[in-house]
């Protein structure tokens, strides 16, 4: 086979390869590099940040410990990189808060600002190379060890030898390509996807007072009279960091749903785009305050909540989370409740006893198939139910940091 562009890539060997530049991958790569490992982070899209930038998720969840009431002080669940990124975002004007939403504290942020802050942090990190527009196409492995990765970009194929690999793809892609054990919930139980788009030009009072209820009335009437597609019933509106910015999130049922199938993903993306433009056209014509509204951005990809989960040396369960179980030397703490979105009924929350955080063992971040394969983010080793808690950004950052350190440590 001819690899005409192999020489175009300077990196031939790396201590740690991180696959996927979402929040878990950023945390993993920066932490591994800071621990002294030569680290390569590859991301197939044009920006770091994953769901929190490319899918336009605009609130960082799971950064702060749960509080019984507003009087309790706000505490980061995980000091270290999750806190560092949140504070950098706030300093850069890319996040404002935290704000309390019901029983939860979240940090609203601008998706594009998160990508820019991630660019800056990674650029300033010694030992770290970031390659955007680069995809993993295959892995070479021996007994219990991953040895090298095939990467491709724009028709070029590269082979990079690795000492360890962190799968931060969100879909356990590296694990799947290497033949590592993984699990996936049945299609009818997977957490449903969301399509998020930005709206500008609306009046700043467009969501004030009971406006959301009036919008609900308007949209339900339009769906009932077939002026809007039924998928519009999944839409919710929220202000962004600035009052002039509105985010619309459409929860899609997407049946038959398979988040690892390109046919399904193509259908989901096209449906999200179509319904977004239907909604904005309808609001411009009929909703008070939306007369001059327009779509300011659509996502680079739909928001995927759940797909494959890598099978690890240990498996975090629903009971662990609901009982706030502790482990000796936890790699990370997860504090978000189970947020189940298995159907279009909207979220169903289940809170842990006494709002206690759960300790995630490092064994949940280690593949049971390959000794040098780690996992971080929403596809760590856990049950389908537990994944409904650990998928949020704060926890992804924390498992990323822990996986990065652990992957760097096996060099010594």
């Amino acid at each position: 086979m001819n690899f005409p562009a192999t020489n175009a890539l300077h990196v031939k060997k790396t201590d740690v390869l991180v696959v996927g530049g979402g929040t878990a991958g950023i945390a993993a790569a920066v932490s591994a590099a800071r621990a002294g490992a030569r680290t390569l982070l590859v991301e197939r899209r044009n920006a770091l940040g994953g769901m929190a930038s490319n899918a336009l998720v605009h609130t960082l969840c799971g950064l702060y410990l749960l509080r019984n009431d507003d009087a309790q002080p706000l505490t980061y669940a995980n000091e270290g990189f999750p806190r560092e990124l949140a504070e950098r975002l706030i300093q850069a004007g890319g996040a404002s808060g935290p704000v309390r939403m019901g029983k939860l504290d979240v940090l609203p942020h601008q998706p594009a600002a998160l990508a820019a802050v991630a660019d800056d942090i990674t650029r300033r990190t010694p030992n770290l190379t970031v390659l955007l527009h680069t995809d993993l196409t295959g892995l070479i492995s021996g007994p219990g060890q991953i040895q090298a990765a095939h990467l491709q970009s724009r028709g070029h194929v590269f082979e990079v030898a690795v000492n360890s690999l962190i799968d931060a793809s969100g879909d356990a892609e590296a694990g799947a390509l290497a033949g590592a054990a993984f699990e996936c919930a049945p299609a009818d139980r997977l957490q449903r996807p969301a399509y998020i788009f930005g709206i500008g030009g609306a009046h700043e009072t467009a969501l004030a007072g009971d406006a959301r209820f009036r919008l609900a009335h308007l949209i339900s009437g339009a769906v009932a009279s077939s002026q809007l597609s039924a998928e519009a019933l999944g839409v919710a509106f929220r202000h962004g960091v600035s009052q002039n910015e509105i985010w619309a999130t459409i929860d899609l049922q997407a049946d038959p749903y398979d988040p690892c199938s390109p046919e399904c993903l193509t259908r989901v993306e096209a449906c999200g785009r179509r319904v977004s433009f239907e909604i904005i056209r309808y609001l411009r014509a009929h909703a008070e305050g939306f007369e001059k509204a327009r779509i300011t951005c659509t996502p680079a990809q739909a928001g995927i909540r759940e797909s494959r989960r890598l099978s690890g040396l240990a498996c975090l369960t629903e009971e662990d989370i609901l009982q706030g179980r502790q482990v000796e030397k936890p790699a990370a703490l997860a504090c978000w409740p189970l947020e189940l979105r298995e159907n279009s009924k909207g979220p169903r929350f289940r809170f842990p006893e006494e709002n206690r955080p759960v300790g995630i063992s490092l064994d949940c971040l280690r593949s049971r198939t390959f000794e040098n394969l780690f996992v971080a983010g929403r596809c760590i080793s856990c049950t389908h139910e537990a994944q409904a808690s650990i998928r949020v950004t704060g926890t992804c950052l924390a498992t990323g940091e822990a996986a990065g350190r652990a992957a760097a440590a096996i060099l010594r």
Partner: protein
Amino acid sequence: MAEIPDAIAKKEAKLLSILSDDILELEPDFRTTDDLFEAGLDSMAIMRLLIHVETAFGCRLPVSQVNRENFSTVQKIAALIPAE
């Protein structure tokens, strides 16, 4: 003429079953006077509820009646629906 208590109870029961079957994950002991927003009702859920109410009761509630106070309990929503 005031609605008879039986008719009110029937309407509330029908509404509660719509809510628990198709809109929200309600606990089995959820009562018609319990707070629906505490149970997860939001504007997206209200959209779907309005469509179900229209199908089940044959009436469309006017926009002026759709607000936080009127939708806080099953009992209050049922009171907005005209007698059959």
